[in-house]
C-alpha cells in the first residue's frame, strides 16, 4: 500500500468531527488506491491522471457508504432535505406540525412567571440597543412556503419573526414587515444582523429559546446593551432577555 504525504504527519491525527473524518479518511483511501493504480510518480499523477481516475462516481460511493451505515445528514437548506429525504434527518416544525413546535435550546435561560406577568423563555445577542423593549406576536418563519404565504397575504402587524438561521435571503421579500426578529443562529455581524440594523428592526441573534409557540405574545429586551465584536472575541456574555407575556 502506497503512502500519502500526510501519512507521516507528526502533529496531526484526525479531524475534529466524526463526519469530516469519515469523509476525509475515505477520500484519502480513494486517492491512495488511484495513485497506486496509475503506476505514476506523484508529481505526474497529482494534476494529470488523478483528474481521470478520481471521479464524481467515487465521491458518490463515499456518500452512499455513510448512508448505508445508517447515518442521516443534518440539513440546513430545506431544499436539501426535500430533494433527498432518504439522506437527511426529517424536517420538524416546517409544515402542519408548526402549531405544536417550539425551539428547545438547552442553553435557554428560563424562569417562572414574575409579578409583571413575564415568563423568561430565552435570550439573545442584541444587535442594536433601542429606547424601549418590544412586545409582539411570535411567528416562526422556517420555509419558503411560509414566506410565500406572507408575501401573498402580508405579514400580520406586530409580528416577531422566529427564524432559524442568520441569513438574509429566506425572508428577503418580507423582512421589512417584521416588527422584530429572534434568530437562533449567527452573531450581530451576520447578514440578518446587518439587514435588521439597516431597517431599524429590533433583532436578537444567536437566540437561545425554549417553549415559545406560534402565536405567543413575547417581549424582547431591546433596551439591553448591544453585543460587540470584542465581546465575541473575548467570550464575554452580553445577552438580552426574551419573555413570554402571560398577562398584560
Amino acid at each position: 500500500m502506497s503512502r500519502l504525504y500526510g501519512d507521516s504527519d507528526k502533529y496531526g491525527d484526525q479531524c475534529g468531527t466524526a463526519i469530516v473524518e469519515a469523509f476525509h479518511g475515505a477520500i484519502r483511501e480513494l486517492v491512495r488506491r488511484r495513485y497506486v493504480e496509475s503506476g505514476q510518480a506523484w508529481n505526474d499523477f497529482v494534476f494529470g491522471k488523478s483528474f481521470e481516475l478520481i471521479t464524481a462516481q467515487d465521491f458518490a460511493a463515499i456518500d452512499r457508504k455513510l448512508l448505508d451505515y445508517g447515518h442521516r445528514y443534518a440539513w440546513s437548506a430545506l431544499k436539501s432535505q426535500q430533494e433527498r429525504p432518504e439522506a437527511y434527518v426529517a424536517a420538524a416544525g416546517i409544515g402542519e406540525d408548526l402549531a405544536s413546535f417550539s425551539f428547545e435550546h438547552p442553553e435557554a435561560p428560563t424562569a417562572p412567571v414574575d409579578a409583571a406577568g413575564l415568563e423568561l423563555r430565552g435570550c439573545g445577542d442584541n444587535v442594536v440597543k433601542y429606547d424601549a423593549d418590544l412586545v409582539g406576536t411570535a411567528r416562526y418563519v422556517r420555509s419558503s412556503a411560509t414566506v410565500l404565504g406572507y408575501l401573498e397575504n402580508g405579514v400580520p402587524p406586530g409580528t416577531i419573526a422566529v427564524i432559524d438561521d442568520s441569513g438574509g435571503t429566506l425572508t428577503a421579500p418580507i423582512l421589512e414587515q417584521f416588527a422584530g426578529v429572534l434568530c437562533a443562529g449567527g452573531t450581530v455581524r451576520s447578514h440578518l444582523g446587518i439587514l435588521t440594523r439597516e431597517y431599524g428592526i429590533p433583532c436578537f441573534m444567536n437566540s437561545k429559546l425554549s417553549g415559545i409557540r406560534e402565536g405567543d405574545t413575547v417581549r424582547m429586551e431591546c433596551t439591553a446593551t448591544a453585543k460587540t465584536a470584542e465581546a465575541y472575541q473575548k467570550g464575554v456574555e452580553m445577552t438580552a432577555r426574551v419573555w413570554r407575556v402571560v398577562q398584560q
Partner: protein
Amino acid sequence: MDLSYTQLLETNNLIQQNTDETYWLCLTRTVQESKLFPVSPYMILSYFMCFYRYPSLLRKIERHMKAEDIGDRARNMGIKIQNPAMGWCLPSFYLLGREYLIAMGMIRPQDAVEDVVYVMDFWKRFELAWHRNDGHMTNRDFGHRAQVLPERKLQIFHADMYDCVEGDALHTAAQAFMAATSQYGFLVSCESRIALHNQGPYRLDDEREMIVRDFMDLAEGDYPWLDGVAADMPYNNLTVPMAVKGCHFNIIDDWGSFESQPEFKSHHMVGVGLYTSDTLSEGHIPVGMGSREELTRTFEMLTQKAKDATTKLWQRIAGWNRDQMLDAGAITYFSIIKDLAHVAGCYAMEDWMLIDERAERFRPLLNDEYGNLSLWEILGPLSNPCQRTNEYQMCQHANTPARMYSLIPYSILKDGDYTRTVGGLAPGASYLPAKEDRYRTTQGVLPLAEYNRRAREFVPAVCGEDYKYLCESWLKYHHRSPEAEALYRVEQRESRLLANRGAGLRRADVEALRRG
C-alpha cells in the same frame, strides 16, 4: 520560473497574513447559513473552482493589464475590485481550496507551487496599488481601516453631499434605499455579502466622519439569474458617500464590513450623496445630485426598483432545485474577482459563470452536514490534521497549535520535489439557464464583445500616463503646479460645487462652500 528562497519567504508570509486575518473575521461572524441556500456546500465548491482556475484566469488578465494597474483603476470606481473581493476573497478562497485538497490527501503543500507564488504575488501587487494612498496592503495592516481615496475625490464627495437629519425626507429615503439595496444585494449574491462594500472612515471635521458605501452588481450583467428580473434596475453599481455624527467607525475590515462606537443607528447619518461608476466611466458619475429633492426622489425610485427586483428574484430562486442553488452560490463566490477581467477587457462568460469540471467531481460530497462541519473545522478549531503544528506554537487570536493555511516547505529548494501548476483551464458547465448577452454599463446596455472592446480602449483620464504617478505625496508639494490644477479640474468636471475650483482648496474651504 526558477523559485527563489526570497519568493518562498514572501509567499509564506502572505499566506500567514491570510491565516491570521481569516480566523479573526470568521470568529466574529460564525459560519454563514441559510434555510434557502446550501451555503457551506456552495462555498466549498467555489473554493475548489478558485484553486483550479484562478492561476490561469489571473495570468490571462495580466496578459492585458498588470495587477498593479488594475489596482490603480480600482480607486477610481465602486465595483467588485475592492473589498471583500480583493482584500480577502482572492487569496483566501484560493488558499481554502488548496487547504481542502491537502486535508483530503489530494495534493501536498508543495504542489502547484508556482501557482501559489503567482496568485499571492498578484494579490500583493494589486493591494499595494489600491491602498497606495494609505500606504498599507490590507485593511488589517491599517488596524481595520481603508483610506484609499485621494483628496480630490474626497473633496467632491464632501462638497456635493446633502445634509440630512432623522425624519426628513432625504434621510428617510436614503435609509430605505440602503436597507432595501443591501437586502437585494444579499439575494443577488446567494446569501453572501459580496455585493456590499464600505471604505473609510474619512474625517470631515471634529464631529463628523464619512464612509463610502458601494452596492455592486445590481443590474442585468454577469449573473444569468438577473436576466429579466433586473431589467429595470438602471445602474449596475451605486456608491453612497455617507456622513455620520456622533459615532466613530472603529472597524472597516477586509470584508468591507464596518463596526462603530457607539453602534451605528440611522440618526447618526447626517449627509448623503449618490454616484454610479464602472470600468467604462470617468470615475464616479453623480446620480440625482442636482438638488436634495431630486436626490430624495432618486433614492425612492431606486428603493422601489430594488424591492421589485428582490421579489421577482426571490420567486425565481425559490423555484430552483438544489443543484441550481449550488451552482449560483459557487459561481457568485468564485467570480467575485471577475471585474478584474472587465477592467482588462478580457471577460468571457465561460471563464467565470460555469462550474469547472475538476471541481464538479466533488458535488456528491457536498451535503449540508459535511459542508457545515468541514467548513467549521477548517476555519474555526483548525482541526484538520494538516492544520496542526507543534505543541509549542500559539496561533494568533486562539493561542492553539494550529495554522489555517499550510505554508510551502522550503525543502523544495533543496530536493526539487514539487509540482509547478494545476495546468490550464478545463471545461465547465452549469445547471442554470444560459446567460443572455446583455450587460448594463454606464455607456448603456451592451453585448459582451462590445463591452470588452470598449474596456480595452478606455482609460479614465485620471488613470492615464499624464496623471497616474501624480500621487498624494507629490500633490502636497505641487498643488500650485499646472499639472495639479489640471488633475483636480478633470476630477471636478461633474461636481456641483467644485467644478473648476482646482487643487488649492483645503477641507475647511470645501465646508465653507457647502455652507454658501
